[in-house]
């Protein structure tokens, strides 16, 4: 290899790995060392199956077959384990031919985690915005004729003498009020946030107390707080409402018996809605309930989407709009026995409120 070529390889951002016919590593560039979190000295001579042990053996078989057919292979979003941490990579493999026979295999890896994450968050925010606009529009459209309906029933009620007939109008009025109440809830907070400097654990402890009173004794609430988290400017009542909705959801998902963990941590360098925050508070609410049905997963933040027969489907949608008012983000991941809601709240709105 000429010095120039070597220099180029060593300065590439992509990880470049070269394997010989026996599938042993013969070259790795510095980007590759960083990606695999190990030194070339340790890695060279190792078989591909050991380096990529978390890839399916099926994948390695495919790879080998393609190489023997002298065809390149590109695969996206493969998960690689390294030092207790999994990373997502795009992989492309190219057979290097030597006199028309497979000589070596060149593998190029590019980490995509960060990139993927940002797109996912943007999608989530866009989805949340769309749903909010949709709901607001719909709720306003319903509220107007509802006012007319209730008013007309009220006027009719004045005219009626017969108590039996008044029952009819009373039902129209009461049901209109119920619908009106629902619309107001769907429209969410109409008051602007009243932000004060507060400690997130104050809020979480309040939520914990409220839920502990309501929930069955067989549901155990654990906490794992990071006491070093600085205070943030936020509307206390709105945060209580938002987090209460999420914890209540967890309680209802669990049913009779189970555990909920409320955990706080500092999360560094987070991008929310194209804005980068140096410090955010991450609140994780984990329950060991049955999990969210996969088909509901993409829609849980839409209003009226609920997994429970008696649910209004408003809890999460309200929580989400309250957290968005604080420039934050809610994410959710779920599998049977483990559902995590992560709430991110930026800590950098300090001067905005001062």
């Amino acid at each position, binding site marked *: 290899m000429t010095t120039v070529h070597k220099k180029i390889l060593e300065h590439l951002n992509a990880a470049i790995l070269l394997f010989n016919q026996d599938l042993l590593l013969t070259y790795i560039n510095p980007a590759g060392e960083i990606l695999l979190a190990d030194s070339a000295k340790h890695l060279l001579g190792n078989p591909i199956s050991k380096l990529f042990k978390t890839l399916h053996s099926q994948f390695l078989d495919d790879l080998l077959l393609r190489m023997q057919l002298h065809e390149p292979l590109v695969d996206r979003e493969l998960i690689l384990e390294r030092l207790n941490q999994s990373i997502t990579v795009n992989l492309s493999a190219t057979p290097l031919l030597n006199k028309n026979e497979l000589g070596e295999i060149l593998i190029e890896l590019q980490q995509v985690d960060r990139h993927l994450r940002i797109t996912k968050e943007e999608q989530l925010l866009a989805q949340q915005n769309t749903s909010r606009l949709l709901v607001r529009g719909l709720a*306003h459209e319903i509220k107007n*004729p509802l*006012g*007319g309906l209730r*008013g007309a029933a009220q006027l009719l009620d*004045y005219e009626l003498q017969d108590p039996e007939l008044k029952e009819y109008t009373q039902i129209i009025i009461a049901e209109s009020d119920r619908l009106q109440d629902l619309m107001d809830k769907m429209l969410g907070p109409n008051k602007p946030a009243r932000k004060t400097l507060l400690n997130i654990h104050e809020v979480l402890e309040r939520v914990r107390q409220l839920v502990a009173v309501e929930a069955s004794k067989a549901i155990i609430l654990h906490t794992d707080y990071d006491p070093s988290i600085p205070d943030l400017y936020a509307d206390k009542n709105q945060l209580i409402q938002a987090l209460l909705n999420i914890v209540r959801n967890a309680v209802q998902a669990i049913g009779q018996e189970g555990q909920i963990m409320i955990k706080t941590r500092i999360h560094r360098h987070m991008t929310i809605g194209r804005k980068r925050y140096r410090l955010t508070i991450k609140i994780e609410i984990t329950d060991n309930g049955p999990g969210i049905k996969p088909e509901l997963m993409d829609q849980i933040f839409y209003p009226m989407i609920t997994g429970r027969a008696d649910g209004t489907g408003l809890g999460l949608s309200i929580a989400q709009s309250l957290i968005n008012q604080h420039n934050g983000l809610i994410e959710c991941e779920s599998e049977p026995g483990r559902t995590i809601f992560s709430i991110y709240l930026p800590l950098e709105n300090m001067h905005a409120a001062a």
Partner: protein
Amino acid sequence: MQQLDKVWIVDDDRSIRWVLEKALQKAGIETQSFASANELLKSLPTALPQVLITDVRMPGIDGLELLKYIQDN
């Protein structure tokens, strides 16, 4: 106290206009309704009501803009 005998109603929602008209007429109050602020402005300045009841959120000129316009002129 001055007798209330003319109330103008501005609302883009027909059923709300109707309810307000009925309720006021029952109390013996004369009303005139408009479906939009623009429609009302056509009647200005030849006549003025004693009381104006207006919706805030309306297509075109909204209720607050309408009040400001009447005040300024």
